[in-house]
């Protein structure tokens, strides 16, 4: 009886740190992290609308914060995070319809998500800068 209660070294499944990061696993956790990050940016959206509703003073104050260097860097990160979650989410929806499950397709769609998100981020900012230059 006493033997049963003593703690034995149980086999453990390998810790996550042991695995070499792969595109599949990195994108999997990235979808989660970007989702949480976008929730934080959603808070900014609500504050931004509230500031706009309360008047020009509060609005311009918030615009100054967003327009500052840290604000712009955060906004750039937000753009990439937005597109990564959007493209990654669509990839997940395709999987949910039981399609593109072959390993080759999984890697192809994975790289497509990464490259498309980066491209859309660059295009968005270039367009934005172009419009800002014209106004």
């Amino acid at each position, binding site marked *: 009886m006493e033997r049963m209660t003593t703690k034995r070294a149980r086999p453990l499944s390998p810790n996550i740190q042991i695995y070499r990061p792969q595109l599949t696993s990195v994108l999997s956790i990235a979808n989660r992290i970007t989702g949480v990050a976008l929730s934080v940016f959603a808070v900014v959206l609500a504050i931004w*609308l509230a500031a706009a509703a309360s008047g020009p003073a509060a609005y311009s104050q918030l615009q100054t914060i967003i327009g500052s260097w840290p604000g712009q860097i955060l906004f750039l990160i937000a753009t990439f995070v937005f597109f990564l979650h959007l493209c990654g989410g669509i990839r997940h929806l395709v999987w949910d319809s039981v399609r593109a499950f*072959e390993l080759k397709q999984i890697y192809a769609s994975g790289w497509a998500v990464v490259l498309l998100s980066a491209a859309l981020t660059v295009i968005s900012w270039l367009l934005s800068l172009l419009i800002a230059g014209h*106004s």
Partner: protein
Amino acid sequence: MTRYRIQTPLGRAVGLGSAKSGFGHWWTERITAIALVLPAIWFAASLIAHTGTDYETFIHWLAKPINTVMMVLLLVTLFWHAALGLQVVIEDYVHSVAKIWALIVMRFACFALAAVGIIATLRIALGA
């Protein structure tokens, strides 16, 4: 690849999977994801188009019925989808009593922020 039907016919009719309410949650997360695609792209495009515009122009733009409707739809689907997603994250990494509190606070925050956003948008739209 063969497509398997995971649910039993009864389960499909009742709309509940083996995890009781789990399927409903999973399904709603997908539906809100699809519903979010259009408002999200509209929002991103609008932000790009309005780079550097002043307060008056922005207010005038948001007060247009189509933009008011899109903004409210964005807020509803966004915070709904966020609440479902954050719930899964909390359930995976937070345990015991802390989990319950985290879930309650997260839900309250999502509802409150959606309310703040929608009321602010409507105030601007109605010129209050």
